[in-house]
């Protein structure tokens, strides 16, 4: 229909027709409006009138005809031949992959540069859980909390995902272009304006790359800085031996241990191994009553302190005096302005005598965060006691370039201030946040022309850099690293990078203008270059498979102690002293966005989601302070604020500040958590700041602690005794409780003809390190609830570490007790559930059927151990895509309104059962490791079949130390505890 045809569209007529119409009339086109015959014909053609549109409506006959035809046609369509297209079945599966069964790959995770070997459990190509690598010398099958939380870090939806230039999204190629330009301008000056800042480097490949780059640009410099560095150790070793060394201990051989304000059970390279060795010497059984003895001198309470047989508190500044006094008694020639320790003469005397009496079989361990002088004295004491070569050995340093970090960073800061630095490449780390406050690092950043940052998060440093490159997680990248004894591991990726992220190797490669080289090739190249003899491919395969490069452990070397070293130290002053410690879970702030670590109750304080100014009850009382009151701490012009938390057993007039919290640039998880205390930490006093002024601000910050009550109220929940008492009265522990006569029931005893599961927890070796809690969280898809909900008392952990204090408040004995579902034989939760959602299995497990639970919470009320956890809200995140990859597919993710609790890792039991059935045998003892058991550094948790008389769990349950908690209620728990035993020095007990 063309516009020209006058007769087809008559506008005037249309308008008059439109005026005549009433009500709402819609017209689709001018043609329709004019209603020409052509248009009607067009409509008829386009939309043929329905067969129903007969003139006389729809007749019955017509309807039946149509329906008959429709049905016949509908039937016919089923006879259509499908096209002959072949699909490929999953018959020839990819190698090793059995759908539904996990694969384990050996790799390593690092903290502070030191590697721990792990086995990553991979489901359909996604890592969901890390276990310790039993073959790895730094793991022995255990891990620390950071390794457990690594998978959450991998899938953190708030990780940095894109390259940013001046805050805007950019591309890797543009970065390479910009970098090439910068490097070109530095070629003539041999790189005099280039600075690379890394964290501790133990990676041979990265070191090679850096060295090679420095070869190209000899005037460029490599600096290293990490807030939790080992500067005191390095300086102390230099003082003692005049060279850089690393030092390893053998706690298994040590009968007497003196710990000088440190925590060898955590927070020290090799601490997993040390914890295992230490625990092996504390496992008292029927037949063996040999036990080591630990003396701990402490300012800030540590886990090692809680395990000590004798513990002495003093200011951190006074420890050096104490060490010097002990050293003098041991015959060490201590020179310099150092004072003698005053007070506690008997203690000092006894320690010295005990050490002397065990020459060659004792150990003095200095704290990582003590001064270099204390480290020197410890080396000297071990030397004097003949421990070197027995309980202490020295090797070449594991760190490839063992510089003192504070000095290295100060040098960089000096260059930045003088304007020499033109290109600063920050390879991981967050110096803007955690550099010593006196360096004013953030301000100096502005003086550098081009600043590049590689990091997992767009953090404070990224904000001040021109370029930010997202860093790959260690589970996504190739690399290598060494552990505390030098053993090298190759870090292999478990998953392709989730986002377009880069590794340190990639950055170095692009600095070398070799951006085509992949990290894999670089790492492989390093090892190929150093490989002699044999087939390299076999070597490579074996190394990857085992998770370590065989034979790379450093040989011990002989060192000569320098005597007559002049020790200049001020010792303790009378004012308030601040000791800085890395946060036990957030570390230097890098894990601030990790919900698992945030919500993990910190050892002893049981705080979550915050740091605090920790101080002793007496100090708080003297200063008129209460929990949660915010104080400002001032040293010179620097000042920080933090809420008070009173910690029994803390040294008097001393405040512990855990740094790492209060980062300004952080994801939604870490936002607003805690207080930044770095502004008080200077290069001169990285760990101990004397004479700090403390004032109350009047503010109050609520702190979320998971345990409000520290006293056992005289109940025999954690039973403890001295070794001598136990030897004299073997039934001592049993006599502490009153177990009801098992015959006091009207019902016949339930028979468990097959398996009957049970657990024993050895309280004597539980160090309270919390790793079991986190391993359980990772294994069982346990939700994070947030600070508000912890304050509401709704944390979800299936296993918690109860911490009780005994004795005087200033130096009490702290007792750790892991508590999970005790799988009671007469479970009080089961009888009260109205819908049978929690029931007893024929293997003795107390099982929870989430689908059936209606959420009356009666079971939780009736549980004497209060181990049940309720989903008051929909805590689990069902929406975030990356977190879906995190879940263990063997464990249901719980939704709102259902109860949950420890299952004894029933999914692992069933996995073992399937394997055993396939092989037509019974499940072997030790074949099932619950998540908490597997990760425990001290093997404090043992699980097994109570019906198997030869099983380890039965042996332990027959021990004199074995007792059940609250057995007087008649609930018959399947989990029992081995009592805590102390081995005090008789000299000190009598006094």
């Amino acid at each position, binding site marked *: 229909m063309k516009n020209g045809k006058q007769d087809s569209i008559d506008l005037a007529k249309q308008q008059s027709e439109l005026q005549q119409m009433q009500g709402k009339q819609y017209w689709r086109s001018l043609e329709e409006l004019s209603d020409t015959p052509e248009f009607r014909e067009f409509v008829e053609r386009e939309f043929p009138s329905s067969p129903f549109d007969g003139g006389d409506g729809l007749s019955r006959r017509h309807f039946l005809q149509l329906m008959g035809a429709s049905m016949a046609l509908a039937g016919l369509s089923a006879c259509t031949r499908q096209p002959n297209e072949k699909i490929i079945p999953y018959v020839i599966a990819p190698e090793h992959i059995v759908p539904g069964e996990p694969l384990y790959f050996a790799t390593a995770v690092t903290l502070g540069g030191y590697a721990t070997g792990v086995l990553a459990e991979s489901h359909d190509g996604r890592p969901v859980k890390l276990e310790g690598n039993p073959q790895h010398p730094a793991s022995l099958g255990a891990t620390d909390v950071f390794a457990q939380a690594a998978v959450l870090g991998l899938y953190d939806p708030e990780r940095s995902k894109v390259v940013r230039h001046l805050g805007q999204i950019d591309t890797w190629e543009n970065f390479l272009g910009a970098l090439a330009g910068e490097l070109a301008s530095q070629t003539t000056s041999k790189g005099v304006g280039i600075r690379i800042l890394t964290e501790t480097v133990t990676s041979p490949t990265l070191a090679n790359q850096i060295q090679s780059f420095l070869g190209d640009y000899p005037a460029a410099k490599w600096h290293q800085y990490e807030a939790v560095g080992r500067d005191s150790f390095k300086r102390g070793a230099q003082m003692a031996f005049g060279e850089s060394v690393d030092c390893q201990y053998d706690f298994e051989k040590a009968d007497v241990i003196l710990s000088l304000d440190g925590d060898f059970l955590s927070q020290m390279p090799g601490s997993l191994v040390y914890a295992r060795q230490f625990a092996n010497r504390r496992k008292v059984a029927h037949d063996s009553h040999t036990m080591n003895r630990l003396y701990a001198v402490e300012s800030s309470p540590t886990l090692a302190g809680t395990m000590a047989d004798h513990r002495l508190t003093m200011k951190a500044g006074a420890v050096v005096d104490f060490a010097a006094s002990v050293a003098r008694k041991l015959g060490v020639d201590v020179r310099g302005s150092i004072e003698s320790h005053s007070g506690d003469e008997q203690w000092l005397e006894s320690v010295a005598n005990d050490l002397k009496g065990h020459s060659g079989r004792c150990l003095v361990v200095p704290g990582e965060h003590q001064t270099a002088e204390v480290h020197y004295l410890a080396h000297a004491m071990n030397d004097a006691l003949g421990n070197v070569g027995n309980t202490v050995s020295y090797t070449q340093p594991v760190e490839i370039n063992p510089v003192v970090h504070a000095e290295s960073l100060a040098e960089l800061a000096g260059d930045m201030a003088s304007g020499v630095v033109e290109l600063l490449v920050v390879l991981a780390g967050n110096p803007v946040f955690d550099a010593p406050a006196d360096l004013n690092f953030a301000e100096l950043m502005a003086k550098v022309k081009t600043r590049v940052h590689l990091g997992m998060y767009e953090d404070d440093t990224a904000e001040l850099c021109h370029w930010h490159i997202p860093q790959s997680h260690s589970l996504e990248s190739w690399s290598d690293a060494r552990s505390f004894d030098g053993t090298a591991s190759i870090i292999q990726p478990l998953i392709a990078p989730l986002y377009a992220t880069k590794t340190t190797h990639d950055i170095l490669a692009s600095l070398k203008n070799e951006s085509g080289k992949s990290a894999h090739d670089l790492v492989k190249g390093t090892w190929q270059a150093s490989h002699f003899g044999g087939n390299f491919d076999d070597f490579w395969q074996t190394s990857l498979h085992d998770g370590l490069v065989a034979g790379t452990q450093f040989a011990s070397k002989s060192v000569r102690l320098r005597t007559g070293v002049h020790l200049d130290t001020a010792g303790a002053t009378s004012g308030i002293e601040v000791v800085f410690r890395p946060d036990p879970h957030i570390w230097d702030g890098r894990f601030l966005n990790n919900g698992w670590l945030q919500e993990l109750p910190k050892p002893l304080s049981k705080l979550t989601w915050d740091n605090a100014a920790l101080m002793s009850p007496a100090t708080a009382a003297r200063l008129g302070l209460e929990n949660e009151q915010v104080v400002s701490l001032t040293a010179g012009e620097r000042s920080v604020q933090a809420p008070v938390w009173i910690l029994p057993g803390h040294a008097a007039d001393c405040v512990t500040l855990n740094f790492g919290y209060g980062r300004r640039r952080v994801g939604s998880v870490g936002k607003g958590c805690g207080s930044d205390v770095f502004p008080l930490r200077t290069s001169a006093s990285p760990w101990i700041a004397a004479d700090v002024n403390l004032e109350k601000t009047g503010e109050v910050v609520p702190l979320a602690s998971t345990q409000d009550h520290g006293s056992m109220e005289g109940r025999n929940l954690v039973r403890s005794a001295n070794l001598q008492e136990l030897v004299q009265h073997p039934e001592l522990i049993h006599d502490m409780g009153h177990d009801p006569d098992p015959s006091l029931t009207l019902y016949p005893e339930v028979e468990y003809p097959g398996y009957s599961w049970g657990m024993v927890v050895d309280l004597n070796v539980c160090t309270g390190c919390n790793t079991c809690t986190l391993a359980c969280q990772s294994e069982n898809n346990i939700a994070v609830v947030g600070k508000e909900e912890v304050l509401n008392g709704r944390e979800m952990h299936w296993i918690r570490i109860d911490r009780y204090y005994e004795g005087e408040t200033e130096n009490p004995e702290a007792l750790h007790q892991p508590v999970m579902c005790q799988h009671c034989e007469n479970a009080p939760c089961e009888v009260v559930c109205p819908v049978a959602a929690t029931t007893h299995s024929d293997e003795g497990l107390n099982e929870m059927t989430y689908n059936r639970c209606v959420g009356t*919470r009666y079971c939780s*009320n009736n549980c004497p151990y209060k181990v049940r956890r*309720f989903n008051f809200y929909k805590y689990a995140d069902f929406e975030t895509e990356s977190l879906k990859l995190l879940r263990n597919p063997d464990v249901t993710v719980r939704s709102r309104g259902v109860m949950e609790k420890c299952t004894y890792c029933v999914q692992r039991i069933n996995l073992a059962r399937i394997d055993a059935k396939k092989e037509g045998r019974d499940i072997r003892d030790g074949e099932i490791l619950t998540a908490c058991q597997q990760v425990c550094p001290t093997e404090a948790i043992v699980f097994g079949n109570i019906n198997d008389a030869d099983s380890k769990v039965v042996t332990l349950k027959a021990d004199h130390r074995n007792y059940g908690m609250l057995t007087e209620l008649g609930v018959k728990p399947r989990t029992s505890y081995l009592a805590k035993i102390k081995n005090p020095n008789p000299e000190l007990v009598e006094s």
Partner: protein
Amino acid sequence: MADQVLDKKEHSHHTGAPLIEPGHSYGSVTDKISSIVLTRKTPVAWFLGFSVAFLLLMVFLGSTAYLLMKGTGIWGLNVPVGWGFAIINFVWWIGIGHAGTLISAILLLLRQEWRTSINRFAEAMTLFAVAAAGMFPLLHMGRPWLFYWLMPYPNTMALWPQFRSPLVWDVFAVSTYATVSLLFWYVGLVPDFATLRDRTKNRWAQISYGILSMGWRGSAIHWHRYETAYLLLAGLATPLVISVHTVVSFDFAMGIIPGWHATIFPPYFVAGAIYAGFAMVLTLSIPLRKIYGLEDFITMRHLKNMAKVMLATGLIVAYGYMIEGFTAWYSGAEYEEFMILNRLTGPYKYVFWSLILCNVAVPQLIWFSKIQNSVVALFVVAMFVNVGMWLERFVIVVTSLHRDFLPSSWDMYSGTIWDWATYIGTIGLFLTLMFLFLRIMPAISIFEMRTLVTDDKKSKAE
């Protein structure tokens, strides 16, 4: 019939004060009571009261909607305190719901005819209190939409409820009680519905009351069957008064938590329920008789009798408190001992001592005849008991749970704004139903009141 009349007369002489003020005839009683319902002009006070009640009902709906949207986390619950306001309120309402059936059934069987003027609205109060109570077990569940899993019904999961759980017994006890109470109340209303049907001028009211009266014509056979049915229902309801709160007490007594696990609980709970119920009847009847001018029907003698029942049951409750303490001491069980000390001196001691003040100390005033004869004083005492009984449940539920066996899991509990909103909301539900009841149904049994008139006249004739 004559014997019965004689009994009644003697009884009324025995207790002195009249059950109905002199000067009333059949007609005047019927006029007075039915006019409250049949009047065209609804009193302004009713509208005022109803709007407040309705507003509170909306608070209930709002907080319930939010609860269903978010989950029980909006309440102050935690681990260890898994039950809080919801269960406290449930037990409180159920307790209040005891007086109605007690007054109607047990006092009927005991031929305490002073009950006549208060039984109707006491029964209504029971029903509405049970309705309010019933809300809480539903709402406190994590997944309330699955509440029917607590009922035994054939299902594809081939699962019964877990019959050992006291919560399942609760379902049966409360639903049976609600059903029987409803029937009892309705059967009692039938003759009065017929009266209203006959007297109303409004066509719709005629039809509605006509349907509700189920064809009641007042024939001798009707009366005969009515009396039999009513008596049977009374017999049926009587054990329920005891059983419901016994079962409710099992929710606690079957648990192993110190402070719950006590054999005294069933009688102590039943006494507490009657105590609370009578306090609530007093609380409601005192303003009611004032506003509607029913002083002739709800006389001082009624108020006094109720006060005396309150005093008696209150003493039983006080005995319960005492025995709890005694058992804890006598048992020598450290957890029990700690529980009592914690109640008396722990962080919730103010709640406990307030409870003692409200439930034990203040009601002793009833011993004085001056207090007995003061309407205001009785109202104040009843209000104390209402509050006290709520506090009692708080003490039982919260202070037992918040510090149980392992000190590591001890925690504190307090209600959130949503806890309060839900609680106040159910008061709204209760009052809304009550106001509607007062407007459309006879709050006092007309035909039973007329029997009292007859007595009076006869006694005068003698």
